[in-house]
């Protein structure tokens, strides 16, 4: 059993994401390492709202990846900088 990943799944299930988004998010992290999962779990345990924030961040990134639009990447970085300033 992979306890860390199970905990991750439980927390995602408790989040406000839609069922489809929950599934996508769990699939995304199914390739994560334990160290990566530790970092993410720390924030998720503190506040489940981070699940939504992370998923929003992922959605923007996957859209930018598909479109290969460098402006979108600039926008993501700008948003991330803004977010880091607020925490």
């Amino acid at each position: 059993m992979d306890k860390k990943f199970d905990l991750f799944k439980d927390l995602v299930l408790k989040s406000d994401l839609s069922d489809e988004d929950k599934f996508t998010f769990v699939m995304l992290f199914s390739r994560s390492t334990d160290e990566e999962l530790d970092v993410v779990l720390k924030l998720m345990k503190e506040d489940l709202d981070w699940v939504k924030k992370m998923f929003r961040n992922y959605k923007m990134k996957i859209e930018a990846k598909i479109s290969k639009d460098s402006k979108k990447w600039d926008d993501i970085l700008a948003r991330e900088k803004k977010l880091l300033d607020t925490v």
Partner: protein
Amino acid sequence: MREKFGGSQEQTDWIAPAESRGDSYGRVFRQTEETLLDKARGKAREVARVMVVVTALTFVAGVPKEGYALNLPNQPEKTADDSRRDTGSWNKKVEDLKKENSRVGVDVETIQEDVKKEEKKPQKKGRVETEFEKIAKRTKRETENRAKARERQGQREIQNKIERKIGKVLRIPRY
């Protein structure tokens, strides 16, 4: 094996290496994003790390489709191979197979798709082959077929050469 990007080893060595998980486009963005990580302190640092992890995973080529039971109401329950570690080893096997066969030009991805199609057909009784075994068997068959084709091609070329030589001999004017 871990990868460093400009920042110190301790800042990035917990993230899976980008070289095995994404394309150059992803690496460039990750490098840029990791400069944010360098500057962030305290809570912001934790958040920045999460952002870098999300980026790393976004650039993972393909997403495993089996073995990740989420048990949502609309999702069929999956019990077989319910371990992300197993899928990891499976992916490694496929990658190894790709490397092994890249020299002879066998397209493992096409074979993989074919095997998935075959899996949808009803299974015969007896021992069920694993997906990897099926791919390995099919790849071996493809490799052998290509080797035979190359051999036939070689024989044809030799035959053509002989025929050309004979043709020249036959065209020699008689006196």
